[in-house]
């Protein structure tokens, strides 16, 4: 499973990339997209939504299952990836880049201490038997 080196990770297999210390780009990991299989629908949050760390945020459906996505950091949604509405498979093809889900304005940067580094996430995946 691919893990992007400079991102942060949640136990629910979401990733965060922090831009300029204030914006968090959020998506799901290679492990998550692989476990879900072909993704067929993404329910995006709305711009302006206030979200809490590890709270409900978005959902994805695949050919196998429906799955909730939790927001890895608190903040306000400032952008969503509308390309996913017509092309949800972008998450399968490019989960760390073109398949991003939303950007939030970070409310509390300290919350990143509740997330895993790439190295920690890799060990976490190993502990799951991957």
């Amino acid at each position, binding site marked *: 499973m691919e893990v992007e080196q400079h991102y942060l990770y949640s136990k629910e297999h979401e990733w965060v990339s922090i831009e300029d210390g204030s914006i968090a780009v959020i998506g799901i990991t290679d492990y998550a997209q692989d476990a879900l*299989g*072909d993704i*067929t*629908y993404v*329910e995006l949050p709305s711009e302006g939504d206030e979200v809490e760390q590890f709270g409900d945020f978005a959902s994805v*459906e695949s*050919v*196998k299952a*429906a799955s909730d996505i939790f927001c890895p950091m608190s903040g306000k949604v400032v952008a969503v990836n509308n390309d996913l509405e017509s092309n*949800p*498979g972008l998450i*399968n093809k490019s989960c760390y880049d073109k398949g991003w889900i939303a950007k939030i304005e970070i409310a509390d940067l300290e919350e990143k201490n509740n997330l895993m580094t790439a190295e920690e996430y890799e060990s976490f995946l190993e502990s799951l038997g991957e």
Partner: protein
Amino acid sequence: MLTTQSLQRTPLYEEHLALGARMVPFGGWEMPVQYEGILAEHKHTREAVTVFDTCHMGEFTIHGEPGKVGLDRLVTMNLQTMPYKTCRYGFLLNEKGGVMDDLIVFRIDEEKWFIVVNGATTLKDADHFRRHLKEKEAFEDISAKTGKIDIQGPLARNILKSLVDGIEKLDYYTFDFFDLLGENVLISRTGYTGELGYEIFYPWQKIKELWRVLLENGKVKPAGLGARDMLRLEVGYCLYGHELDEHISPLEAGLEKFIDFEKDFIGKKALLEQKKQEIPHRLIGVASASRRAPRLGQKIYSLDGKEIGSITSGSFSPMVGIGVGLGFVKIEAAAKGTAILFGNEKLKSEGEITSRIFYRNGSLKN
């Protein structure tokens, strides 16, 4: 739930692993759910040709006049009017009119019959046949020595033509015996995808060679249970255990045309009773208003939030571009075009009651 150790494996198990398949438990068998991906395998079946391992399915032979040996009373279809070398779909019912299995009967000649049943129900069905046939020795369960590969898709005939002399002559729902890689085997023009296709019954011990030869052709790809379920759902075929089971009557499932009420059969009395009263539930199609798919176990609600039924199968449909599903709803709410909601108490999505058939442009009868 069965543990991994007790799951049965088909003779193609090692082939699936070598092809990178993801294996899952299915009706007591360890089966490939996908190889490269469900959407890709679905697309390849609709546009080209795929092969499915269906060795888990059960096969029986019955020798004798159907009335005399007791076969006629066990299945719902009219056997007397079947020409030789044709297939007919129908049901095995219990006394209450519930569906013990859906099956296909093949008439080989005057007194030779071949029956194909679901994998998960093979032992139960065999037991039912042995218990109810008047002549037990007429029956044989040949599942353990009979493998099966389904080849499905618009190119299926072209691919088989190079391996099987005379395959072009088979019409939809007919079969014959053909030479294939040195074996004389039964091949039928049947399937579960809505595409042109064949089911090849091949000796269990030798079927690995057939699988390899079919896949040597670069146009042929393997497809798993995930694609199979999506394909059958798009064309509105029922899946045993979902739309059909021992507590569902074929009348509720809207499958009366596969029942011959002119003859006597187990479950007929119960079905006639049901016909006298109004049937309370009916199998319907659900078209989602978006790509979000109905899911097994979700409820169906009227627009004012009243629960009117439940979903038995659902998936995203690549051919329609929306989520589609099958489910049972109360008869008074079952009219096509009715706006409904599907989901659970927490989250409901918009949809509409439709025909059970979502996709009609397959190559099935080409």
